[in-house]
């Protein structure tokens, strides 16, 4: 019976195909919007999380900021050593500098950046070596001319299929030996591409590219068993002391907790998703009213049919079920079209704004069920009106 009723509904919908499409447009758009935004939101979250994990999961990033007097006082290696030795719960601290440069190899050249750091920095930032090896203690200590390639740089100037290990390449006017290739890191902070970089010992970059012993920032990795805020407090206190900041003077540096950044970004994405959900539900509400309207029209148009069905012995609930089924089938079809549209749109947009396409079966299922549920909510009144018609009047209806 239900199977036959569904087939009947499909036929009725096909008979009024244009009307059916126009009617379900609200639902199609609503569902497509929800699916697209949630899928894109997931993509953004995924890419942000990837970025966060590239910063390290429970890390502080400390960098100097311009004071009111307009000066910047950079940190140096002594600050890093003090932090790692004097604060309980700190597992390691590692400084970082970078500079723009051009990489040359075998007649090819590629504008990129060179980053200086130690093996500790690699560890703090969760950078893995895909091929070759990390620095030796001697290479770090002496500031040797050895380097780790980012994937983009390798692709740009090294021949495909050959190992770059052991090759002598040039960065600006510095010659260096390739000792390893870094694993893919993905998008970095501020839209930079972390794979488009060459990694060298800290001292090498300081001496050969920067000409001083300053750091751009340093990373502090802490033991997650300790309270982040306690560590942050002692960190700030120690650095203020080392920088001779008096009582009321503001900090001339910034401490960022990556865990907090993670939470903040998550909250921002959540707020955006909630906003889209509200907009989409308005669209769905309008769509639902459209469904109710068209079902009322349909009941009126088919009054005679209802009369015939009642006369030959249909029960009130059977007539109600028929019209309810029709509304649900209509909405469910709208939901399916919306999901398909949302799939295509989110796939395209994800590529356009360069975030991963993360298919979420839950949101697809939920929006489908929601659309079908709209059929029940907005189809019930027209269906129940149909079922209450008087068979004699309905048969006389012109």
């Amino acid at each position, binding site marked *: 019976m239900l199977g036959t009723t569904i087939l009947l509904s499909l036929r009725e919908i096909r008979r009024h195909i244009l009307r059916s499409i126009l009617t379900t447009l609200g639902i199609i758009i609503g569902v497509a919007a929800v699916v697209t935004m949630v899928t894109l939101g997931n993509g953004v979250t995924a890419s942000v999380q990837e970025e966060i994990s590239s910063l390290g999961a429970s890390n502080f990033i400390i960098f100097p900021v311009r004071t009111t007097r307009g000066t910047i006082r950079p940190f140096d290696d002594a600050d890093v050593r003090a932090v790692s030795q004097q604060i309980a719960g700190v597992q390691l601290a590692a400084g970082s500098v970078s500079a723009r440069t051009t990489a040359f190899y075998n007649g090819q050249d590629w504008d990129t950046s060179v980053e200086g750091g130690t093996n500790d920095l690699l560890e703090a930032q969760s950078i893995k070596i895909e091929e070759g090896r990390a620095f030796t203690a001697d290479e770090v200590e002496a500031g040797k001319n050895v380097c780790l390639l980012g994937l983009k740089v390798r692709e740009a100037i090294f021949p495909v299929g050959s190992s770059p290990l052991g090759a002598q390449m040039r960065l600006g006017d510095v010659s260096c030996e390739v000792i390893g290739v870094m694993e893919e890191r993905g998008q970095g902070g501020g839209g930079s591409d972390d794979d488009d970089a060459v990694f060298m010992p800290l001292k090498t970059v300081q001496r050969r590219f920067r000409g001083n012993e300053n750091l751009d920032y340093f990373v502090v990795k802490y033991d997650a068993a300790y309270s982040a805020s306690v560590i942050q407090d002692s960190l700030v206190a120690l650095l203020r002391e080392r920088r001779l900041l008096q009582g009321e003077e503001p900090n001339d540096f910034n401490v960022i907790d990556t865990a907090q950044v993670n939470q903040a970004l998550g909250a921002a994405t959540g707020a955006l998703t909630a906003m889209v959900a509200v907009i989409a539900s308005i669209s769905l509400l309008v769509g639902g009213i459209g469904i109710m309207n068209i079902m009322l029209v349909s009941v009126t148009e088919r009054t005679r049919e209802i009369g015939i069905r009642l006369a030959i*012995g249909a029960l009130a609930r059977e007539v109600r079920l028929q019209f309810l089924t029709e509304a649900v089938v209509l909405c469910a079809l709208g939901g399916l079209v919306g999901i398909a549209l949302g799939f295509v749109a989110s796939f395209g947009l994800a590529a356009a704004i360069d975030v991963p396409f993360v298919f979420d079966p839950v949101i697809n299922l939920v929006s489908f069920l929601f659309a079908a549920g709209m059929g029940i909510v907005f189809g019930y009144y027209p269906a129940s009106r149909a079922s209450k018609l008087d068979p004699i009047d309905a048969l006389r209806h012109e």
Partner: protein
Amino acid sequence: MTEAPLIQLEGITKTFGSGAAAFQALKGVDMTIERGEFVAVMGPSGSGKSTTMNILGCLDVPTGGVFRFRGVEVQKLDRDQRSLLRRRYLGFVFQGFNLLARTTALENVELPLLYRGESKSKRREAAMHALDQVGLVPWADHTPAELSGGQQQRVAIARALVTQPDVLLADEPTGNLDSERSVEIMELLRRLNAEGITILMVTHEEDMAAYAKTIVRFRDGLVERIDRGAKAAEGHPA
């Protein structure tokens, strides 16, 4: 006959509206119809014949009186219970055919079986049998728009027959047909009656009423006269 009559009306009244605008369509109708009868209900417009047919068809309930169908007091049943009576024991044929548009003859005939929950294969089989009874098997796949009036009415009769009802109620079945088609339909009804089905038919054409075994004449909400057997057959074309 020892068992209860198929249909028994006792003092049936029906009032439409209320207060000053109230109109009493039936003023106390008594009538008994046995199994196997072919009854023509006649009378001028407003005489109460259609109201009576609606009550007999369990589509409407009387305001007063007792209507027993197979011994069951119909006026005490609710809407759905009356639907079940129609589904099981009654078949309807209307003046305007009332077929579902854009739906094939076969599907129209299958419709009542759908509400009986019959399987698809059984529906098909029974519907083809009913179409065979009205001689329309070759037209099974045609929609009402592709059929003549007479053919449409035969589809409607097949639809009424498909559930093998006890009673076939026909409301002016030839009202929209020319005389040749009308005779065709009446011959069909007479044949079905001969096969055992009870037929109640409203008509205002004496020619058509002449096919019935009994003629009930209405006037002003009351039964004026009942002509039975040979008297009803007077002037029969056959």
